[in-house]
């Protein structure tokens, strides 16, 4: 409701300013009213989730362009130069009639639902597959019979692949063979509200006799608070786990559980994690309610390798806690970090820059060339001197009569007005020396 009231107020000011711009006699007043109008439109851009364009509107339109207008008005002294001429009497009523007609047609078309305001196109789902099943060995990944990645070893993941929305059959075949280690069908919906629609299928668990399970996790790749990361944890380990921050090594009092009791197959999202957070003291532990101190818990995996486990700013990270098989056949927990840049927020500078520097690079450069041409054009158009070809200049200099060349050297006019014979000026007597 507040939004509607704001829209009515700001839109009203915008229209009023436009009308005042048309009606004011003084061109400077018109320019100032136009600035008010531009500012209102910038506000409307903010309401429409376009903060970057709102700032551009203020800086480029209300700033640069209007300054140019005001400058030219003052330069020419053109505030009140134009009296209406009597040449086109029919123009005013015709313009009013045409405008009214257009407004009527546009109004009817818009209000009667003639413009297409159906819901936006769905974004296709993107799928990646994480191999966290230690007994399965290297696998080839197929989606709907199409090979996505071959020879994926345990602990690795594929890239995101865009798929058609709907049911998708995922098959993990033992690498190089057509024997399916696991086959499952997941339902991937399209989405028309998000900027990115990502899913992660995680193959986990299983042992020598039972095939691994596949869990589907929806990735939240939306914007994160600035300089933070969104960390999610998927537990693919056979037992429930805790995520514990052990703080300093020696002091047991600063140990704390970040997330407790994550069941196998469950996904937990942490609150936003600051980019400066060190994961060195974090560890996944087993759950034991009988343990008195957190340091008594059985540590399954530490995140103490800063080359692998860091918090990358503005990213969405999924940590898959899986297992790896040791040589003696026992299992050990292993953490697979999957870091993705968060998708730029709609209408923000980075989302526009991403489009500008990828798909629309050529138009962007053409615009730059156009602006350069406009700059040169403005200089050429307003240049005061008329253009004189240089060659004529040179010829005229050569054709100069000899007498004028002498004049240049002696500093007198050698042609006396009465007779046209050149004569050197009489020698002045030398002043007597002292």
């Amino acid at each position, binding site marked *: 409701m507040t*939004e*509607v009231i704001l829209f009515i107020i700001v839109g009203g000011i915008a*229209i009023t300013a*436009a009308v005042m*711009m*048309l009606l004011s006699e003084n*061109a400077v007043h018109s*320019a100032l009213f*136009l600035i008010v*109008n531009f500012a209102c*439109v910038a506000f*409307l*851009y903010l*309401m429409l*989730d*376009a903060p*970057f*364009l709102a700032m*551009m*509107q203020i800086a480029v*339109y209300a700033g*640069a*362009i209007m300054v*140019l*207008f005001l400058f*030219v008005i003052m330069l020419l002294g*053109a505030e009140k*130069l*134009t*009296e209406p*001429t009597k*040449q086109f009497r029919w*123009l*005013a009523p*015709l*313009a009013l009639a045409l*405008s009214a007609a*257009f407004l009527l047609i*546009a109004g009817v078309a818009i*209000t009667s639902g003639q*413009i297409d*305001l159906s819901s*936006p*196109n769905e974004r296709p789902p993107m799928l990646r597959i994480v191999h966290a099943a230690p007994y399965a060995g290297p696998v080839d990944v197929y989606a709907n019979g199409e090979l996505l990645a071959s020879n994926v070893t345990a602990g690795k993941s594929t890239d995101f692949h865009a798929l058609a929305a709907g049911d998708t059959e995922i098959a993990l075949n033992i690498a190089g063979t057509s024997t399916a280690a696991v086959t499952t069908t997941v339902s991937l919906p399209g989405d028309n*509200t998000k900027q990115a629609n990502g899913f992660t299928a995680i193959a986990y668990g299983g042992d020598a006799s039972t095939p691994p399970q596949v869990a589907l996790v929806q990735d939240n790749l939306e914007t994160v608070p600035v300089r933070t990361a969104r960390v999610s944890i998927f537990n693919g380990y056979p037992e429930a786990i805790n995520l514990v921050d052990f703080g300093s090594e020696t002091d047991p009092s600063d140990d704390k559980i970040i997330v407790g009791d994550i069941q196998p197959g469950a996904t937990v999202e942490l609150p936003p994690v600051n980019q400066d957070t060190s994961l060195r003291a974090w560890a996944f532990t087993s759950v034991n309610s009988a343990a008195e101190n957190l340091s008594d818990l059985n540590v399954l995996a530490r995140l103490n390798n800063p080359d692998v486990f860091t918090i990358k700013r503005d990213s969405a990270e999924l940590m898959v806690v899986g297992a790896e098989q040791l040589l003696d056949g026992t299992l050990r927990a292993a953490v697979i970090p999957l870091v993705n840049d968060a998708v730029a927020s709609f*209408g923000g500078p980075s989302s*526009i820059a991403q*489009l*500008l520097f990828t798909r*629309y690079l050529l*138009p962007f450069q053409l*615009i730059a060339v*156009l*602006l350069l041409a*406009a700059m040169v*054009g*403005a200089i050429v*158009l*307003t240049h*005061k001197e008329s253009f004189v070809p240089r060659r004529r200049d040179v010829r005229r200099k050569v054709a100069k009569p000899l007498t004028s060349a002498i004049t240049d050297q002696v500093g007198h006019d050698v042609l006396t007005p009465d007779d046209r014979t050149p004569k050197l000026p009489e020698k002045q007597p030398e002043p007597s020396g002292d």
Partner: protein
Amino acid sequence: MVQTEAFVMLSAVLFILGAMGVLLRRNAILLFMSVELMLNAANLALVAFAKQWNQAEGHLFVFFVMAVAAAEVAIGLALIVAIFRTKQSINIDEMHKMEG
């Protein structure tokens, strides 16, 4: 939540006001300002539809329109200055002959 129709309607009204300015005012500078108003109205509709369809391309086109408008204003005002030098007037009714 304001409907997209409302923004498009406002954009149509602003566009009409700009078009009336082009048709009715005789001052060349005001003419240019009215053209800016029309471009701005088109931009508003583009941004409104960009939000409706959840596509950032609309914003990009607005960005391009702004750049083109800047180029157009630079050339247009240079022309006005040049014409004012020769004719001592910027009344567009007096500019109907193709003479220098």
